[in-house]
């Protein structure tokens, strides 16, 4: 038998809706039943009937309160399983809202569900009255020959009811899908709040992971490539010092290799130094900055003004960002700041803010939007909720100011 697509869809939806509603009845009416019991017991207690009622009443109350999470879980399952609607797990302090759902809204919805299912069942029964009429005992049937006319009306009424059921069921399901997620799930602001908390946490995790990765790379390079290069340069140096008998061409080759090896060490050192120096963990930001400032190819004046007893007030992640800011900024000054003859790095603390200012006396005109160095720098500053400002008017001077929150 071929059922038209539309009817098939309607039928599928009706099946889904009715099973959703039918399943709602026990879940919705259970709390109603519990409340009814509590009410009854409460009346008994007030009237002074029975001696163990207070115990039972307390037990019923506790049961009602504690059944809330279980009922909520069951409702979430019902929505997910039958409607494909995922209600996020509510937070514990919003339980009273779901309690309200189970006790008040639930009872109402349960009633509507019962009505709708009754309508469906009576509809089916009425529409098929001719089918089962013969089975009804003779004396119960309508007692005169006109009964078939009445049965005809009953059939019509049944068909009308059946025709109305899909729309009513859909409406009721719609009502439930409004009420259920709104009352059982977290509310939108709470949802946002939780999302912000989640994101903050995961971002901090990502920042820490990136720091740990930098430390690991620094350590690997230190123990591996850097030692090998030094050893290579040392052996070439030994060759240079001892093999004095060699022809000049050979000596030149050794000389060149020796120079290359030393340059490679220098380059690698500069690169690794920008990652995460061990001294940053050991002695803090102040100590780590000396190395950066001294390595810069132009004179840098460094002024760090942190109270010594509070010099480790920032988290390692914030210190790492401050270090990176100075490192990148000085690299940038050396690379791009035209006609810069000197730079100045100032680190101060204003309340809970670590302020890093890097200034140079170049001709200015730096654009944060151009050049990936500054973009990366700004991003890294934002990763710890810092602010990044830059002023570089044409003609100079250029000043970069970074503020990092550093309350532990």
């Amino acid at each position: 038998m071929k059922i038209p697509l539309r009817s098939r869809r309607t039928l599928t939806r009706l099946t889904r809706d009715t099973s959703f509603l039918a399943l709602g009845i026990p879940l919705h009416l259970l709390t109603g039943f519990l409340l009814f019991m509590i009410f009854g017991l409460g009346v008994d207690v007030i009237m002074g009937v029975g001696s163990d009622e207070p115990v039972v009443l307390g037990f019923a109350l506790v049961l009602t309160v504690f059944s809330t999470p279980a009922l909520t879980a069951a409702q979430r399952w019902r929505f997910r399983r039958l409607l494909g609607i995922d209600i996020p797990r509510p937070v514990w302090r919003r339980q009273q809202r779901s309690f309200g759902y189970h006790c008040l809204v639930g009872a109402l919805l349960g009633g509507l569900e019962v009505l709708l299912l009754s309508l469906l069942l009576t509809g089916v029964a009425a529409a098929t009255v001719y089918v089962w009429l013969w089975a009804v005992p003779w004396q119960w049937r309508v007692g005169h020959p006109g009964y078939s006319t009445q049965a005809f009306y009953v059939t019509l009424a049944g068909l009308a009811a059946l025709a109305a059921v899909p729309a009513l069921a859909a409406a009721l399901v719609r009502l439930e899908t409004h009420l259920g997620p709104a009352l059982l799930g977290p509310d939108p602001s709470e949802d946002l709040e939780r999302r912000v908390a989640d994101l903050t946490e995961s971002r901090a995790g990502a920042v820490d992971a990136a720091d740990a990765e930098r430390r690991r790379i620094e350590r690997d390079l230190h123990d591996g490539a850097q030692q090998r290069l030094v050893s290579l340069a040392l052996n070439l140096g030994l060759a240079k010092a001892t093999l004095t008998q060699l022809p000049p061409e050979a000596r030149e080759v050794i000389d060149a290799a020796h120079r290359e090896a030393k340059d490679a060490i220098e380059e690698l050192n500069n690169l690794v130094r920008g990652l995460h120096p061990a001294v940053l963990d050991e002695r803090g930001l102040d100590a780590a900055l000396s190395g950066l400032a001294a390595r810069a190819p132009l004179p840098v004046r460094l002024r760090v003004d942190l109270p010594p007893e509070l010099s480790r007030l920032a988290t390692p992640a914030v210190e790492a960002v401050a270090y990176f800011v100075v490192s990148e900024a000085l690299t940038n000054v050396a690379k791009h700041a035209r006609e810069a003859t000197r730079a100045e790095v100032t680190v101060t603390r204003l309340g809970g803010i670590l302020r890093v200012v890097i200034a140079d006396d170049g001709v200015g005109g730096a654009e944060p939007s151009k050049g990936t160095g500054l973009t990366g720098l700004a991003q890294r500053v934002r990763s710890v909720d810092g602010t990044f400002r830059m002023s570089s008017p044409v003609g100079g001077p250029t000043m970069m100011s970074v503020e990092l929150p550093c309350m532990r």
Partner: protein
Amino acid sequence: MHEVSPGTDEGSPGTKAAVRRAVIAEDSVLLRIGLVKVLEMAGFEVVAETGEAQGLLAAVAEHRPDIALVDVRMPPGFTDEGVRAALSIRQQWPATAVLLLSQYVEERYAADLLAANTSGVGYLLKQRVADVEEFIEALRRVAAGGTALDPQVVAQLLVRRPSDPLERLTAREREVLALMAEGRSNAGIAAQLVVSESAVAKHINNILAKLDLPKADADHRRVLAVLRFMGMGE
């Protein structure tokens, strides 16, 4: 040998003729082999090699060497173990000179190291060993009770100075000051800058005058003076 000796009272261990004995603490085996070669070339006898700080202290206690070559980052923590070991060597066995080697130099470690006594101390970048002859010179200087500071350390110290007094110096005088801070003698500075020794002496007199420092002739005293000027001395 063109020896740059302070030639003063600072008890230079052993006589010039005696073979000087050295201990090496370096966790990279590759580099340790190279360092042994360099030390032997410089006429030192390597009496012990170790890869970590505890072993170093034990070796120094046992052998009482003239000099200990110490890597800063060693097991177990790979941070500043070498610096801490060097400090306790200097405290317990003052006759043993210490030359710290490190991939990076940090002025804080230099400050710790130089806080008590600037004789028989060196702090150099590892890569300096590649310039074998210069390194050997620094090695001998430190073993003889002198000082050897890496130019990088000196540069880091200068970065911290409020610049006013330094700005009174000419570029050449700054160069001379940096070389003084590294622990070099007049002859060493003259050779480095390719000028005459008398020119160097004149520069130094100018520097000392401009910085209001007392005149002094012994190398380590000059270093002390320079360091004091840089705000690191006592």
